[in-house]
Structures are given as C-alpha cells and as structure tokens.
C-alpha cells in the first residue's frame, strides 16, 4: 500500500509540482493544504505517513503548524520545503522535530531522498 | 530587442505640485501620482490609476482643462514645509488645480465641470478603505466649490486608464480587462 502524504504550501503550482514528484515516486498525496491551519486539521483527520510543509503561509505559518502537529502526534514525520534558508528557521524547525529541511528551488531527487529517509526511520 | 532603462530619468524637480503647460502641438501628456497637468485643445491629458482618484476639470467654452491625480483624502497631519505636494491630497489638490486654471487661463469655477475616476481597491489585503475615502472626499470638496460632477466611474478592483480630450471634454476610460468607454 502506498504511503500517504499531505502537501502544504500556499502556492498551487508548488503543490502541483510536489504532487507530481511524489506520485511518480509511488506515493499517494491524500490532501493539498494552502496554509498551516488546514495542514494541522487535515493531519488530525487523515493521519498521513508524512507531511511536506512550507514555512511562509497565511493564517498559520509552517513552523506553527509543525509545532501543533508534533504536539498532537510526537511520531509525525514533517519535511519542511521552503524558500527561507536562514539558520534561525532551520534550527527552530529541527528543534521542534522536523525530519528534514529542503530549500527551494528544489531538485526532484532531493525531495524523494528526504521523504524516503523520513519514512525509513519507522 | 528593446534596450531597457531605469524608470527614473533623473529629470524634473519634483516636489511642489509642478504643473506643465500642455501646448497645442503636444498630443498626449501623462500625469503621475500626486501631480497636476493643465492645458488647452487639441491636447490630451492621460493617467493610469488604481486606488488614487483622477479629477478632470473642463471648460467647454474655452476648451481648457486640467487633470489632478490625487492619492489621499486629507492633508491633515501632513508636514506643509519642505517639499509639500499639494496634488497628493484631495483638499489641497483640487484647490491647487482650480488655482492653476485661474492663474494660467483666467478660468473660474463657474465655467468648470468635473469628471472623476478611480478609487479602486486593487490590493485585496489592504484593510483601510483608501479608495472609498478618496471618493467621498473628492465629491465633498467639489460640492463645496460649486463644481458639478458630470460623470464618474469609481470603485472596482482593477486599474483605470484615462484619456481626457481637451478638444471635446470627453474622457475615455478603460478598466483593466475591458474596452474603453466614453464619459
């Protein structure tokens, strides 16, 4: 059975790009979310195997959503996918429990290897 | 391939609501933000605007008029020393336009009619009703000065392109995504 993934990003084109990459690699994208709040609500509902999470999003940013998801489920796998390449954000995400931190623009291989590595930790 | 340059050519003093007289052989003159241009037929005065308001004043008898491109309703609180731009505000800008038409062409407000355009809400995440405030202020100030508004096209969420023909007093107005309409 395919591993289930939620993709959270406020840009529809990035959600489409990630969905294409993940689907081609055999994963199932069960939900696309446009902000952190929607990502958290969807996580609680669907309990996916992994979430890809942007940081800069309206309503609730990705760092806040990461925190909420990991409070809810300390075993959640969340891979940050963001254009913000700053130590402060990287350290905060990793300290909170993000599995990986991918900087945009990303290569397909980088996304797949991060997802495989995160799911391989089970 | 077109050679691109910076927008700013470095010319012009900017600052004090400078007017530029439109001479008959200059076909189309553009009015930037917080500025006024006046002139006579056969010239055309044009502008493009979003939340700002264009106030076109015209004397059909003299085929003379002017366009004010204003940004804000009130100059209250603005520092009036050091490069104060009267054309930025409805209250000072409309008076400045009237003053220039009187001083340069001898027109008084009895001979003038107004057409007003703009006041759109282009950026949806802007909470302050700038466009609406501008609309309200312009209507009030024109009324206070006894100038009738012959036509108006206001509001919406897209930009306006205005061409004010001093030969006829007609204003062609195009809202983004639509054709020109005549007012």
């Amino acid at each position: 059975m395919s591993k289930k993934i939620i993709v959270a990003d406020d840009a529809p084109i990035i959600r489409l790009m990630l969905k294409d990459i993940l689907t081609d690699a055999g994963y199932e994208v069960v939900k696309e979310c446009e902000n952190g709040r929607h990502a958290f609500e969807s996580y609680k509902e669907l309990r996916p195997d992994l979430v890809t999470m942007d940081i800069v999003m309206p309503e609730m940013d990705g760092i806040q959503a990461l925190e909420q998801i990991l409070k809810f489920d300390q075993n959640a796998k969340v891979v940050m996918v963001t254009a913000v390449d700053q130590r402060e954000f990287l350290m905060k995400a990793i300290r909170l429990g993000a599995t990986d931190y991918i900087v945009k623009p990303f290569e397909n291989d980088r996304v797949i290897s991060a997802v495989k590595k995160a799911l391989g930790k089970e | 391939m077109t050679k691109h340059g910076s927008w700013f050519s470095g010319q012009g003093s900017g600052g004090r609501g400078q007017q530029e007289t439109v001479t008959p052989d200059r076909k189309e003159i553009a009015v930037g933000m917080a500025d006024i241009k006046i002139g006579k037929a056969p010239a055309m005065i044009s502008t493009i605007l979003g939340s700002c308001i264009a106030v076109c004043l015209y004397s059909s008898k003299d085929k003379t008029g002017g366009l004010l491109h204003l940004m804000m309703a009130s100059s209250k609180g603005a520092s009036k020393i050091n490069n104060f731009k009267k054309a930025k505000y409805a209250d000072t800008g409309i008076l400045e336009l009237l003053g220039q038409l009187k001083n340069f062409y001898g027109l008084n407000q009895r001979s003038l009619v107004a057409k007003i355009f703009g006041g759109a809400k282009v950026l949806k995440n802007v909470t302050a009703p700038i466009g609406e405030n501008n609309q309200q202020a312009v209507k009030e100030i024109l009324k206070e000065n006894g100038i009738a508004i012959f036509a108006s096209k206001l509001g919406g969420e897209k930009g306006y392109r205005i061409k004010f023909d001093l030969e006829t007093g007609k204003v062609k107005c195009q809202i983004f995504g639509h054709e020109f309409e005549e007012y």
Partner: protein
Amino acid sequence: MENKDKIKIDRALKLIAKLSIDKSSQVLSKMIKSGASIELEDVYMADISRVTEEVMLKADNEVVGAFIDLVGDAPFKFLFYVNTKDSLVLTDLMLRREIGLTKEFNLYAQSAVQELGNILASAISNIFSTDFQISMKPKPPTVINDFESIVFQEYVIDAACERNEILIIQSIFRIVKFDIHCSMFIMPLGKSEQILQYVTGFM
C-alpha cells in the same frame, strides 16, 4: 549627514543591490532551468510623480506582479513582475513541461509568478541573514494582474503617502532562450536606513 557617511551609504546600497540581484538571477535560473541574464541593475532616488509618470509613458503592458513585504530588522518591500503572456511560458518552465501547454492566464500562471516572487524575495532575505546577520523574513505574497503602471503605483503607494522621494533598487532579468523580461524592485522602508549604516560597518 556628513558627505563621507553619504558615500558609505551609497556604497552599502550598491553592495546590497549587487548581492541581491546576482543571487536572484541565479535562483531564477535554477527555478526555471533556463539561463537568466541581468539586463539592468540600478539604484536611485525617485520623485513619486516623475517616476510614476515615466512608467506610464514607457510601459503599456499587462503584467502579473507579486508583492512581498520583508519584515524584521530591515523592512523592505519587494516586487517581481512579468508580462501576462510570458507568465504562461514561466508556468510551463516551472512545471518542466512543453512550452505552450499553458494557454491562458489561470490559477497556475498566477501561482507561478507568486512563487517566483516568494523565492526571489526569500533569497534576498537569506543574504541579509547570512552575510550581514540581519534578520528578515518574507510575508506571504500578494499577486495582481493589471496594467504595469498600476502594479508599480500600488507597490510604491505606501511609501509615497509618507514621502515624496523614494529609494528604489531596480533590476531586469532576461530569460535568454525565450526572450522574456522580468522586473524586480527592492525598496527599503523606514528603519532600513539604520540598517544601511550598519552594513557600512562590513565594508
């Protein structure tokens, strides 16, 4: 301000402009997997009436623009825009598919410009953080599709409400293979002038 301080600020601005624009062209090229050259790189003070008048005279295009506020120690406003028809090509480039598949301006074309703006603005804030230890973070973009003059006016309007002259860092990139021109603007706000003083300490 003393003349030598003005010279230092001027050099700081040019350094910021150079680093930001160089990084942006690299990031843009990587995002669309196609070379983007820098056609224009300029820093200037502009009178709000004159510069908006010149945009009206020079530009008569329909564009899609992404506005991003960079908040933090050095607040900036960022703008990235491209002709509406060229946004369709950028969409196909970003999605790595055949050029021409995106035939009309739709959600993905708008999103392509939104995300390019986000990535470029973030790249610039990353430089401030890494090279100058100045913390900056982009806010979510706002996108509009309108006349080029409107996009520029709405970009400068907040600053123009407060002052009559604005400082602008402008660049134009050319995506060589497709002859697409993209415009990018960076405008320092308020307390960024203090930051420029701080940056001179690195020079």
